[in-house]
């Protein structure tokens, strides 16, 4: 679907504009004036800007959900989304490429771009350490075999977990949440917040392999205890 870098750099602007016009012709395009020089790169840029404006609202929503609004991180998510969108639109070399699945392609680009920003934020500036720890699981309870613990104290975490469970096959969150081992729930919730296994291990005082294993067990537990339907709340 995507061309090699060296091909992109040598592509003729006319062909680029032709393809983009085909992809997003319904947006409306600037008419070339007879007798005037045609600046195809300018036209391509304008078309991509118009397309970007159409999806900006959704992009902002996705960026806020994944990056959060602290430290203007969602703005950086938006920058990364449109940087990548620009690249992909210019790289798609078949008419079918974007036309048939633009919504899915855009959302994939948006989610991956925001994940990169969030990940870079953790890695480079250590902001992850400043985030409020929302988990209040009781390690002692876990060691004793998993009493019902208040592992999800904030509504937004519960909502995110519901969504996650719905997608991997959950129907009734309440019926299984209290039956999961608290630490497995902690690991899953931290994964939902974007922490990797090493970071989770550090936060919970366990080895990264243990965190990874807990995550797999939590997924298996959910898989075997729930019906594979989308939650009604979605």
């Amino acid at each position, binding site marked *: *679907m*995507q061309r*090699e870098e060296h091909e992109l750099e040598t592509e003729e602007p006319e062909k680029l504009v032709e393809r983009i016009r085909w992809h997003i012709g319904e947006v409306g395009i600037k008419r070339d004036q007879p007798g005037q020089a045609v600046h195809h790169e300018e036209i391509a*840029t304008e078309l*991509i*800007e118009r397309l*970007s*404006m159409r999806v*900006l*609202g*959704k*992009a*902002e*929503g*996705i960026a806020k*959900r*994944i990056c959060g609004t602290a*430290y*203007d991180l969602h*703005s*950086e998510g*938006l*920058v*990364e*989304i*449109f*940087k*990548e*969108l*620009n*690249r992909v639109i210019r790289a798609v070399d078949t008419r079918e490429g974007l036309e048939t699945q633009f*919504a*899915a*392609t855009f*959302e*994939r680009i948006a*989610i*991956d771009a925001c*994940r*990169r*920003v969030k990940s*870079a934020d953790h890695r*480079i*500036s250590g*902001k992850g350490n400043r985030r409020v720890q929302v988990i209040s699981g009781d390690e002692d309870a876990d060691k004793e075999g998993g009493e019902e613990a208040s592992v999800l104290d904030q509504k937004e975490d519960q*909502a*995110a*977990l*519901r*969504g*996650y469970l719905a*997608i*991997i*096959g959950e129907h009734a969150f309440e019926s299984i949440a209290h039956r999961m081992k608290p630490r497995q729930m902690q690991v899953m919730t931290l994964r*939902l917040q*974007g922490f990797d296994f090493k970071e989770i291990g550090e936060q919970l005082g366990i080895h990264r392999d243990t965190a990874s294993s807990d995550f797999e067990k939590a*997924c298996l537990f959910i*898989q075997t205890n729930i019906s*594979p339907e989308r939650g009604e709340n*979605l």
Partner: protein
Amino acid sequence: MSPNRFNQIDTIKEEFIQEWNDGKSPTLISYLSRFPQYAEELSEFVMAFAQVHAVPLEEAQPTEQAKEAMLRGLSAGQAKARTVAARLKEIGMSEPELAKRLRTPIELLGVFHSNQIQNVPSSFWRRLAQALSLSEIQGRQMLAPRNLAYRTAKGAIPQPRTFTDVIDDLQKNGLLSPEDYAFWKAESEAE
């Protein structure tokens, strides 16, 4: 990771989203059983997807801040430059103009190349990215210490310095105005 592998994962992710958009019920588990070789990437992607769709996504009117970020992203997507100097040439900006927008002397950028600087205020990265019409990630990459692996192997990397120490030095050497010094001092302390 090879480009082919990237493309394949992207296609799988888009298939997942398309199924969801069509009102079907794609599940992570079913995708993991079909594509076990991509387990880690798919798990992380679906978790982020779930964060987005945990509650219905409302599309509000885009804010001015969002529009600015969009335009910066489109511009950043066009950037071919890998260094600050090359980017300045690309966008037709002079060094003094950049320094003015950053509120720091241009010498500070050289310090980034030769040292590892810690506790840099996020507002510095934001200013740099906005001034150069780049993403923050691109800006950070442009200011990364040079030849780090080689210099580390040779034991030629000095101790990491904090941003506050660096601006102290710049101020002592008369390169940073009292106003800008106070500004960055406050920014550093705020974080």
